[in-house]
């Protein structure tokens, strides 16, 4: 287990790794991590805010093909009030790929003035791809701002046709839409070089 001491900042982008991380955040510390997976992996992230005024940001993107599978599990616990947590988790699944998200968010009774957001959006690009989403919210404090949203959908056919009508071939139109879906996760990476590198790697097909 890792301890982020008072006011400490921890920021890391994990690309194509299985990440197992357990962090205890003390007052005013900031944590920001990205889990970027282009192949099978298992991620287990546990964050406990034990001091006031902490910030936790978890961004995860998995873009999978074939029979690849990614499981991402997040456990975020607000043990003290006045903290913020923000989670944006996206899966893009082609072929027979599988995604599994378990998001466990807990705000204890005394953790007032907590702000916690968890968003999970998934794009299924084939009929045989499979997504499982298991959010688990335990909110015991009443003076909090907490939001949660999960959705799984397919590519917008009307947008695909619109692009084809402008002469863009279907495959490229599809890739533009998929990239657009993934971009907002990558756009939150602070390291500009890495951010551009990852954006270019998904954009490569288009440019």
């Amino acid at each position, binding site marked *: 287990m890792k301890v982020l001491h008072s006011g400490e900042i921890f920021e890391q982008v994990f690309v194509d790794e299985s990440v197992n991380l357990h962090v205890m955040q003390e007052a005013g510390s900031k944590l920001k991590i990205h889990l970027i997976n282009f192949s099978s992996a298992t991620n287990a992230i546990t964050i406990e805010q034990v001091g006031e005024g902490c910030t936790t940001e978890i961004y995860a993107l998995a873009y999978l093909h074939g029979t690849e599978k990614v499981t991402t599990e997040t456990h975020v616990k607000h043990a003290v009030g006045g903290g913020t947590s923000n989670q944006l988790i996206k899966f893009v699944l082609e072929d027979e790929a599988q995604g599994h998200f378990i998001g466990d968010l807990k705000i204890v009774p005394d953790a007032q003035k907590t702000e916690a957001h968890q968003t999970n959006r998934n794009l299924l690009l084939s009929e045989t791809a499979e997504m499982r989403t298991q959010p688990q919210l335990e909110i015991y404090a009443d003076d909090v701002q907490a939001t949660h949203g999960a959705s799984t959908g397919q590519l*917008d056919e009307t947008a695909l*046709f619109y692009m084809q*009508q*402008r*002469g*863009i071939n279907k495959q490229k139109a599809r890739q533009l*839409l998929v990239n*657009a879906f993934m971009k907002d996760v990558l756009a939150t990476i602070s390291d500009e070089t890495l951010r551009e590198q990852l954006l270019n790697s998904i954009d490569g097909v288009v440019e």
Partner: protein
Amino acid sequence: MNKLLEIKNLHASIGGKEILKGVNLVINEGEVHAIMGPNGAGKSTLSAVLTGNPAYEVTEGEVLLHGKNLLAMEPEVRAREGVFLSFQYPVEIPGVSMTNFIRTAVNEKRAYEGKEPLSPKEFLSIMREKKKLLELPDKLNNRSVNEGFSGGEKKKNEIFQMAMLEPCLSILDETDSGLDIDALRIVAEGVNRLKTPQNASIVITHYQRLLDYIVPDFVHVLADGKIVKTGDKNLALELEEKGYEGIA
């Protein structure tokens, strides 16, 4: 005069329901054809079928563009051959910037014609020039396609794309709907300036109003899946006066 488009006995259906029941139409280069008709007559179906919308099924008939079998082409190939649809409801595409979208479209067409892609500099200068035509603000370049655009901006944006792609056949599907009179004038002027002796337009509209600005050579009345009457621009005025029931 050279034939641009020939529609022969076109039948089409959606979800098993027949909408077009034998449409015949010949469009020559340089002509503007208006298609009017009551709701549900098949006007939008005709534009969807000509552009290859996969929701519709052609059950009978033939369409030739410059003598080539249009219906056998993928939607993107029809577009590169010069068929352009100004959508009645332009689609919002979050996350895809206008600039990236149009540049991709223009360069796909150029590649199809065996031309080199435009350099970013050339592209931006053409884009700036065409934007003026529609009085579109520059700030829209960096936005996602149609996202957060007003109704008028969406329609102007359609005609802007038409200006960028220089189609031989433009289909304007209810382009006037939702436009105030100023936006209507700008859009119509844009369309008129793009007119050449080689290209042609199909203007689908409910109302005569648009035809004061874009003057058609022919007006067709589409009712229950067929063209039931054809005339010159005076037919539109007559329709406005007597209604469709008085004509068909």
